[in-house]
């Protein structure tokens, strides 16, 4: 008898809680969807090769000043998303890892030499490298994520990496900062050579 009353009481406690709980869970996003956003946010910062290349885009933009300071970071996410779309669609792109390594070398060299090509050349160079980064992300995506929230997290993280680069690049206004930026660019290019070596071997 005692255990029967206990069961009833436990059910009486559990029932309202259960009735409340699913409403709470459906009130906003379910666990999978939130996971999609977080994994999208985490993906661009999961590899040093991606981080260095995206921060370099911001650094180079800051060196070049307006309008490149915003044109390059606007170009990169859009073209990278295009590359990601190709990767998701299963369109093959040869030499992705080599392209990513070359992007670190190329962008690092641009920052190190403070290269000032015409604006369209700079944008085209950034766009060319962005396709490799996007494609690599697109083919690596896990199958069961919430697509739209993953995409939001992914683009936000990429954009924030550019903004980080621009923020660091603001030291360009001081003489010592200018030199530091160029050394940083050289560091990115050297890291790119290491990535290239590991991609080829």
């Amino acid at each position, binding site marked *: 008898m005692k255990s029967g009353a206990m*069961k009833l009481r*436990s*059910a009486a406690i*559990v*029932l309202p809680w*259960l*009735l409340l*709980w*699913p*409403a709470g*869970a*459906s*009130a*906003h*996003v*379910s666990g999978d969807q939130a996971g999609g956003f977080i994994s999208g946010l985490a993906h661009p910062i999961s590899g040093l090769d991606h981080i260095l290349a995206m921060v370099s885009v911001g650094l180079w933009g800051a060196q070049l000043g307006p309008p490149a300071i*915003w044109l390059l*970071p*606007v170009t990169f*996410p*859009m073209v*990278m*998303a*295009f590359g*990601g*779309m*190709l*990767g*998701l*669609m*299963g369109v093959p792109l040869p030499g992705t890892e080599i392209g990513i390594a070359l992007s670190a070398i190329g962008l690092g060299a641009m920052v190190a030499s403070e290269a000032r090509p015409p604006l369209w050349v700079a944008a085209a160079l950034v766009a060319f490298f962005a396709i490799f980064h996007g494609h690599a992300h*697109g083919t690596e995506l896990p*199958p069961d994520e919430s*697509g*739209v*929230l*993953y*995409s*939001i997290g*992914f*683009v*936000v993280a*990429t*954009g924030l990496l550019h903004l980080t680069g621009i923020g660091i690049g603001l030291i360009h206004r001081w003489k010592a900062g200018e030199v530091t930026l160029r050394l940083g660019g050289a560091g990115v290019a050297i890291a790119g050579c290491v990535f290239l070596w590991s991609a080829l071997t």
Partner: protein
Amino acid sequence: MRRAAPLLALVLAVATPAQAHLMNSGFGPFYDGLAHPLISPEDLLPAVAMTLLAGLGGARPGRFVLATLPIAWLAGMAVGWAIGLPAAPAWLTAIATALLGALVASDLRLPLAVVTALAAALGALHGYDNGHDLAATTGALVAIAGIACSLFAIVSLLGGQVAVLQAQWARLAVRISGSWIAAIGLLMLGWSVRS
């Protein structure tokens, strides 16, 4: 506790269909509808891009879009709710998001008629999709009214803020947001084709 286990299964089974599309705010279908655009990025992003585009053009396109988008969305929802045609394909809504985001990023001075037509087309497309999803729920017409009111609020608040922006950096920030929305739209297009 043994009695709680089947209870748990039952409650979970009952709760799942409600999650399928429209959220459950607990305040009835009107509030479910109000909340829907705010927590559905696939609807919110193109609506925000449309609003930014209108706002960058100034007050006049802003007013036209404020009138057009919610009404077209409302009409689209009514059609989608009433007619049992298939839902709009995901790739089409993804392309709409990418296109509108790219237009914001480029800051093209589009003629008023084009901006208004874009708002009408976007509202009709996404409204149709919402109406289609709502057809199976109870209180759908009240929810539809909630969604339209929510869109009116989004366009008026955000569009008004953007329309008065004068500073170069502030307009650039809007354009960068547009480029992010375009990038998200392109990725959504990839997802829709993959799955």
